[in-house]
């Protein structure tokens, strides 16, 4: 008589798999990546390739040391997502060792030391970013001037020239690096002294040439917004955290726009479409591992990040603050979780996760 195996229910499964989720996240970065590459040249692509190679090597190495099946864990693509997000966030044409160091720190220390995928309390890409920002402030704040704002006769370096700049190769002779580096919109706005906002916008080509806010950067942010919208549509994450973060930034910048006075904190559009706002809102704070779990929790988590981003941008030392804000709220996520357990079916009200029952 044949005996059949004993298997636990459910016996069916939706086709969705973790690596497919990760793959969709990677695909969704494409519009933003295109905008970055169009405006700032090959640098971001080189960053991503370097970062991906480093992340894969680090992940495989740690998995081998932990005596886990390497291929199985690499196939979830989570290391690749970390690498791509960090590659997008780093300045184009950053030196190779900067990328390597950041990614290695993100994968080995911020992710694997805590137990690997699913167990890291902090967003690995942001940990890597902050470590670099604090350790190498000059390299981390050297950005490129958008292609179309370059002075007459200066162009962005080509692929080979870019590789020469990034990798430990002999530097290109026919290239003046200072010619194509420049401040970011947020950076330059931070150095506005005493001008009315409108005046400042008119006098700065970064703003005066732009359609909405911050030349080049507006398209980068719109690209990430489009990718994020697609992920939302794909139900990869819920709207709660991004919406709360963007709403918080809009609200605060609306209040502190101050009619465009000389002490204005900048227009809401500038804050929404500059720096890493959209990358953060749709690709960083939606990392489920390090965010709050319930929908209410994610609203609080997202709003907290939005508030911190704005506060640090306006009153802090750094022109942008997504990485700091995310890490600070990563700290708070477990606490938020304790107080935002949803009301379960059949219960009159929600209860705290810390309630003890005898």
């Amino acid at each position, binding site marked *: 008589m044949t005996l059949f195996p004993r*298997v636990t229910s459910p016996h*069916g499964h939706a086709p969705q798999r*973790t690596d497919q989720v990760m793959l969709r996240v990677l695909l969704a970065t494409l519009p933003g990546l295109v905008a970055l590459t169009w405006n700032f040249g090959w640098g971001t692509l080189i960053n991503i390739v370097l970062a991906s190679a480093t992340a894969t090597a680090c992940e495989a190495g740690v998995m081998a040391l932990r005596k886990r099946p390497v291929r199985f864990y690499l196939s979830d693509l989570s290391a690749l997502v970390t690498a791509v997000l960090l590659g997008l966030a780093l300045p184009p044409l950053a030196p190779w060792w900067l990328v390597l160091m950041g990614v290695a720190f993100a994968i080995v220390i911020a992710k694997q030391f805590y137990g690997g995928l699913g167990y890291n309390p902090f967003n690995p890409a942001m940990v890597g970013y902050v470590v670099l920002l604090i350790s190498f402030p000059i390299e981390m704040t050297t950005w490129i001037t958008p292609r179309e704002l370059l002075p007459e006769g200066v162009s962005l370096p080509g692929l080979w020239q870019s590789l020469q700049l990034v990798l430990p190769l002999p530097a290109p002779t026919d290239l003046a690096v200072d010619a194509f580096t420049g401040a970011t919109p947020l950076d330059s706005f931070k150095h506005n002294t005493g001008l009315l906002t409108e005046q400042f916008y008119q006098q700065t080509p970064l703003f005066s040439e732009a359609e909405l806010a911050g030349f080049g950067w507006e398209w980068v942010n719109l690209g990430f917004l489009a990718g994020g919208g697609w992920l939302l549509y794909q139900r990869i*994450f819920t709207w709660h955290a991004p919406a709360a973060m963007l709403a918080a930034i809009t609200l605060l910048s609306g209040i502190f726009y101050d009619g465009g006075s000389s002490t204005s904190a900048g227009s809401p559009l500038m804050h929404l479409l500059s720096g890493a706002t959209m990358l953060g809102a749709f690709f960083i704070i939606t990392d*489920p591992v390090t965010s709050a779990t319930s929908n209410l929790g994610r609203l609080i988590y997202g709003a907290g990040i939005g508030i911190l981003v704005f506060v640090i941008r306006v009153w802090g030392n750094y022109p942008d603050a997504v990485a700091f804000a995310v890490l600070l709220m990563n700290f708070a996520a477990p606490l938020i979780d304790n107080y935002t357990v949803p*009301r379960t079916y*059949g219960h009159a009200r929600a209860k705290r996760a810390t309630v003890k029952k005898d």
Partner: protein
Amino acid sequence: MRKIWDIPGGIHPPENKKQSVDQSIGALPLPDRLVLPLNQHIGAPARPVVKPGDRVLKGQVVAEPHGIVSAGVHASTSGVVESISLHPVPHPSAMSSNCIIVRPDGEDRWIEHQGIADYGSRDPQQLLDIIRLSGIAGLGGAGFPASVKLGPRQPIDTLIINGTECEPYITADDMLMRERPGEIVAGIRILAHILGNPANILIGIEDNKPEAYDALEAALASNSSEGSDIELVDFPTKYPSGGEKQLIQILTGKEVPSGKLPAELGIVCHNVGTTQAIYRAIVLGEPLISRITTVTGQSCAINRNYDVLLGTPVRHLLANNGFDADSCPRLIMGGPMMGFTLENPEVPVIKTTNCILAPSREEMPPAPLPQPCIRCGMCAEACPASLLPQQLFWYAQSENFDRLEAHNLFDCIECGACAYVCPSNIPLVQYYRAAKGEIRTLKQEKIKADHSRQRFEFHKERLERAEAEKAAKREARRRATESARARGAEDDSGITASVATSTEASSTAATSPEAKAPEAGTSAAKATVEDIIMAAKARAEARKASPEQRRAALERGIEAARHRLDSTRQKLADGEADNLGEASLDKLRAAVEDARVKLADAEGKLAKLDLPDSNDSDPADSSRDTGSAERVAKKLGDSPRQQLQGKIAAINNRIAVTEQKLAELTDAATLDALRSGLDKQRQKLAEAQQQLSALPVDTAPAPVESPVQDAAAAAITRAREKAARLAQMSPEEKLRSNLDSLVSRLDKARARLATAIAENADHVETLRTTVVNLESKVREAETKLAQGDH
């Protein structure tokens, strides 16, 4: 149009229902045997009422419900009971359980049965009894006895009939609604009558069953003249809308409070299959002997619904549908979401078997290895109970039971939606089941531990109380002895020196609570003694006064003992039937033996009580009791010498008893204990004898404080008196007095020897030597006297 509420979460797995609805409900040839598990429902197993070899008819009761939450079992065809034995039953653990196995005779002959056409004029309780005896349990999957659900304590205003059937693949209810809508509607009318015609009667159907909806609608239209309105409601298809709690939420917007039953909301919910079964039981008088079961999956050539006799082995069902075992990676009873796998196709179809799913490998490939949880929250989006499955998983993994309960683990209905959507393929439901089981076990252990702790504390307290009582008694006795001694001293010698002792005693008595009025020493001491005597008498009276009460208590005890014996025997029988381990069986056997001994003991006591009782009085008891009172009185009035002699006799007695026990016993441990006890008794005896010999032989006891001092002082006085007397005596008188004393000592020694021999005491030899010595001394003295005479 009724308002429909949405439930949170839910999923849309492929329905796979089309393949099994092409053909009408079919019938199968009789199987070569029927396996009828005694427990096809939630609750206590039914009790068999047939024995192997009995002929049974179709519809005959083979097992009766036992307890309130239980359901009977009936033979689903005529035949012979082959055996009542362990057989694999449908259960996730693939366990075996007691089943009645019937070999069909092929005649399929019904037992005589009759329905009730005019149920409307019958008492609902009577109908409930019929439902209960017809063995009807929830056919939707849970198998809760229908009669219990239909007899709630709360008033019911909403009756919901569940025709949702949200699980993929299953079409049993769908086909039943399509083909037998009239029976369902008639069943609903019966349920409504039993529940006192609730204001709302709703049939809930998912919108993927339009044929069933139409059929029911037609049946309702032709039936509308009878009774209250029945509302047919369809709503969007979504898994798990068919869960009782979810359906209630969809149709009423209400949520069943956690841990409560729908009846709390005035709602009762029944499956369409159950409703139809109730119709057949009441109107046709047919018990539940068959049900509609879907046989489906790509490993079966034919996908179809059958009206299957309960007890039909799954193998028989599959064999009639072109089952290809080799292409089937797992065999499922129920649907793909909540069904469980069957290891052995010999298990029977039971009351809750709505589907046998035999998929192919392509249909249900083996689950891939689980990946780490990334807390993506898709599970929380899918959860119909608004739980946080990712957090539950996290805490289940770390066995953090407090957190699991804080996250309402026990509100999980195990629908499997979370595991279905999990991109990491984590078997979430299995984690929850395991954690639930663990928590339940821990709770039971805690209750047990609490009980034994309470028992232990109570026991300790009782021992302490008993010890305190004993100490108080000892104290009272000591005081009484002292005062008695004091009194004796006053009475006998009148020596004023004793006043000191007596005042001391009286002062002790005065400080004690018993002595209410501290008076002069003697009277106070007497009062204490009288108190004690009175108390003893009162106890005796009390014991004598209530033979009826004692008799009643004994009879109660016997009843309880008998009950205990019965239940332990039952347990033993059950245990033997269930093939329990030898160790547990031994334990049960020991329990039975224990219960039997206790019963015999109790009966013996009653018989003893009956014996004097039959003489219409209680002479033995009363004499004993009054005797004890007298003894107490006597003891207290005794002189120290008498007390000592009494004590020695008592010790001798104890020694004799112990020796006899020793002779009978073989157990080493007890033997040693008895021996050491014996030694102690002997030591005590020796001490007592020493004390006695130290006391003056004939004269009244000397009134002194301690016995040793008493004896010494008395001996000195005696010696002095003797010396004085002797000095005055002539030699002949001296000799004569010496002889008298020797003779008296010899008499006493002989008497003691006789007692010792009678009691077989071991100081016989010593006594014998003493007697011999004394005899020679007496002879010597006589010779001397005779010589002096001459």
